[in-house]
């Protein structure tokens, strides 16, 4: 396999990672030097009809980068923006999806893009208060960086009450979560923000009608918000034109796993996965690609050969039987034991299930225990059917998508790699690929 990387240098880091080429990219001065806060300043001065801002975001084809891929402009338009009640804007920086790490880098390297994006979104939805819910584990670097940037913006008079005499108010607050995966689910995040245990709420009512403290609320991912300033600055047509139809713009791909150079790269949507892999130096040690989880562990696994023929955009990955999710590809080479991988993933879901819905609370533990016994060589072939059955009974039977997310890996691993599970069961826990006992590595 060729490791010669195709040339994407002119297409790399166009949107959110644009200032990364500059020194101290997280400062206000650097951000301003690339045209930062121009859009916000224009909005404060001209005060265009709020709907026109939303229309531009709609036209850009920006879709929610948190995983579900819901069109961002459409979501903003659901806000009752002329209603006189207090409305809220919430940024979901609770980036906990295993494999995903682009929000962290936005907070570290370009926090002002997020702040400006939130300010623009607040203007578009006629909101005056926003919260940035940041994952607790980010206390080391991302939170201080973001806080510093926030202080800079306030000091520069870009946020606050009656900003620059425009009569527009916008306050942005940072909230640091306590590190539960489920708090990345938007309604659980709202509960957590309200000071309750993070437990997803039933939808409907959707947050746009009944969100934070029961008030209309818009929640978007960090990357979605941070893309907005560039979209408005360079024009929605430019952004939409970067990617294929229905998947406009750029995406930050978090490449992890068995690649030579794991990294975050911002590239236009629709880039072939093979090119993405080559940009990261190919599979570790020149080995053969076995499988890829293309959007964080919550999406189904895709065999390597299929993935090499797939482009990284919403529709193409969907056609390959998975989902683009957060754009975080976990690459696995040929020495990977899929049973062990699945056991590890199911252990994650077991410990992160909030416990609200019975199928998920009991089912994630059940699946993990079944898989542990496969690894220990104490299972029977019939139990694979049971495992699949448990997964099928979780999927679609829970309040939030966590249940689905815990079931999809099981379903997809069994669909593509059933023979590995069967081999391990038949051979008392010996792995098909690495010739070690399953329990040793687990």
């Amino acid at each position, binding site marked *: 396999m060729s490791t010669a990387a195709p040339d994407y240098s002119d297409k790399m880091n166009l949107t959110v990672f644009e200032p990364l080429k500059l020194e101290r990219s997280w400062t206000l001065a650097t951000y301003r030097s690339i045209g930062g806060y121009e859009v916000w300043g224009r909005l404060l001065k001209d005060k265009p009809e709020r709907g026109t801002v939303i229309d531009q975001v709609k036209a850009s084809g920006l879709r929610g980068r948190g995983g579900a891929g819901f069109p961002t402009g459409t979501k903003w338009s659901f806000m009752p923006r002329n209603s006189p009640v207090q409305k809220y804007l919430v940024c979901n920086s609770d980036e906990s999806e295993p494999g995903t790490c682009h929000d962290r880098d936005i907070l570290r390297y370009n926090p002002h893009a997020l702040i400006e994006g939130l300010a623009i979104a607040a203007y578009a939805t006629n909101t005056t208060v926003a919260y940035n819910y940041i994952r607790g584990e980010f206390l080391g670097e991302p939170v201080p960086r973001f806080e510093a940037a926030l202080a800079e913006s306030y000091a520069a008079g870009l946020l606050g009450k009656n900003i620059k005499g425009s009569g527009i108010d916008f306050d942005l607050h940072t909230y640091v979560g306590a590190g539960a995966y489920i708090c990345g689910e938007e309604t659980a995040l709202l509960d957590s923000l309200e000071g309750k245990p993070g437990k997803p709420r039933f939808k409907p009512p959707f947050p746009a009608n009944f969100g934070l403290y029961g008030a209309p609320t818009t929640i978007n991912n960090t990357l979605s918000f941070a893309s907005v300033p560039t979209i408005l600055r360079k024009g929605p047509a430019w952004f939409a034109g970067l990617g294929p139809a229905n998947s406009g713009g750029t995406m930050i791909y978090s490449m992890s796993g068995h690649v030579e150079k794991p990294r975050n790269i911002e590239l236009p949507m629709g880039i072939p996965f093979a090119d993405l892999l080559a940009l990261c130096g190919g599979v570790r040690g020149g080995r053969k690609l076995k499988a890829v989880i293309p959007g964080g562990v919550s999406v189904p696994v895709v065999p390597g050969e299929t993935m090499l023929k797939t482009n990284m955009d919403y529709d193409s990955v969907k056609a390959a039987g998975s989902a683009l999710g957060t754009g975080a590809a976990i690459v696995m080479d040929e020495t990977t034991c899929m049973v062990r991988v699945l056991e590890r993933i199911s252990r994650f879901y*077991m410990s*992160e299930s909030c416990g609200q819905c019975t199928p998920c609370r009991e089912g994630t533990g059940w699946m993990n225990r079944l898989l542990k016994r496969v690894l220990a060589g104490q299972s029977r072939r019939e139990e694979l059917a049971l495992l699949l059955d448990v997964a099928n009974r979780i999927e679609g039977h829970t309040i939030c998508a966590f249940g689905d997310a815990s079931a999809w890996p099981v379903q997809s691993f069994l669909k593509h790699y059933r023979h590995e599970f069967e081999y391990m069961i038949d051979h008392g826990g010996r792995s098909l690929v690495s010739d070690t006992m399953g329990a040793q590595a687990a």
Partner: protein
Amino acid sequence: MGFGRDVSRYNEGKRSVEDENLGPLIATDMTRCIHCTRCIRFTQEIAGIQELGMIGRGEHMKVRTYIEGTVNHELSGNVIDLCPVGALVSKPYRFSARAWEMSSTPLIAPHDGMGSNLFGHVLRGRLMRVVARENEAINETWISDRDRFSYEGVYSEDRLLTPMIRSGSDWSATDWESALMQVAEGLKARAGDLGVLVSGCATVEELYLAARITRGLKSHNIDHRLRQRDFRDQAADPVFPGLGMRIADVDALDALLVIGSNLRREAPILAHRVRKATAHGAQVAMLNPARFPYLFPLKAYLTSAPAQLVADLAAVLAAAATVTGKAVPAHLAAVVSAARVTDAHRAAAQVLAAEGKRAVWLGALAARHPQFADLRALAAGLAQLTGASLGRITEGGNAAGAYLAGAIPHREAGVKAVSQPGLSARDMLNKPLRAYVLIGGIEPSIDALDPHSLAMIARAELVVAITPFASGELQSVAHVMLPMGTFAETSGTYVNCEGLWQSQNGAAQPVGEARPGWKILRVLGNLLNLEGFDYQSSEGVLKEVRAACEAVVPAPYQGTHTVTALTRTGEGARAGDHAAGGALIDVPMYQVDAVVRRAPSLQRTLEGRTPAASY
């Protein structure tokens, strides 16, 4: 199997969860818990204080209190009924019977004026437990812990099992006939100079027969208002002391002023209704001798020493006159103009100036106040001025029934005023009489809040106690004790604070030779040769009371009692009487009547271990 497999497919190890200690009322079996969070939502949404919560996540989630606390709310026993799997069960009842072995009999709760509906579950004649009976108009699906666990007191160790007669200081058991003969002869000999004290928790039938016997003995000295101090204005009493509105309508109140009431203690179900009203935006103000904890927002809270209570209420009335721009009724004008109005009084008055349905309630603490007549006159003036309804939260489950049945010295059954009113409970205990009859497990030092009353009774020539319990107090003063059935062992009727008549059949068999109170009084009436004591059943008695009350039309208090002074004058006050010092005693929730006092689990709760406060 037609409905799925008969064996579980789950072969993995199951988790077990340690049981919680939630206090003396609720036992736990936490491995049964399915995390439905009903109990948690109950404490949050109905009780108003989150005493239970979830700790942990996913499989490790546990329903428990925060850091080994107990569950203390007065309605918390309802989580036992709510728990769908039996993870939360009744601690006293647990393991004592099987649900399917018991018969279920509807009962009425006798401990407060709500008349909450209960089911008594009976196994072979013994009351094993009490659960809520749904009645949306009264208790919805909830009952207070007091109503749920008081049944334990029925089987107290000091239950009186046979009629007993005292000679000197020795008590000896005897048979019903000779005991009743002795009582009848003794009372006949002292007719006209005796006092009858009845528990406010007795049934209408018992109260009515007690009143008839008293009047048959040429006396009007019968009373159930044992803790009341001030009877100056009793002639103006309404038909019965009630809430002045339906309990269900409390939910829809827009404004409420509560005067002298520890509402959560006195009537937990009513406090819950008020909490519901506040959830819909009702404004509530309180005028109390102390700051009591409430789990709903209060617009105003006036804390006022007992001696200042009347002055403060007059000031609220003065402020209300300013707010509404209406004139204070003439008979109150003088005292109101003397009141010093502060912002706190204005805030309380402002509450009643709101639009919509408004109410002023006088609680049990107000009724125990030495100037109750003044308080009521001022409260009535306030209600009249603001257009609010006037109500009272009475003690005992049947205060309304006692009024209607004539168990008061100034009226006979059917609200017929007597020309020469008898002695009130207070006067009976202040002035020695030749004979006393105590009906319904009365323990004078607690029920009349006066230790001296016991000495007064002890001076009588004959003291007859018709009581379920042979308490130490009664043993020391009585000459004859007749065993009577408790609320669960008698058929009877209760009239609740909204005037609703509710009848029940006896659920349990009376313990020992105890008999339902109405039967004892009926035979006593026969032995006294009184006319018309040939009742065949409690229904026969009830029919007579209802016939007497047929023409009665409930009307609010319309007295014109003149408040002469804002602070108490010496009139009627006596050394040793609490009235003299003005001390108000806030009877603890689990001390209100003889049965509750004997319920061991309730006594072990935090509330049960808290001594009475006096203000």
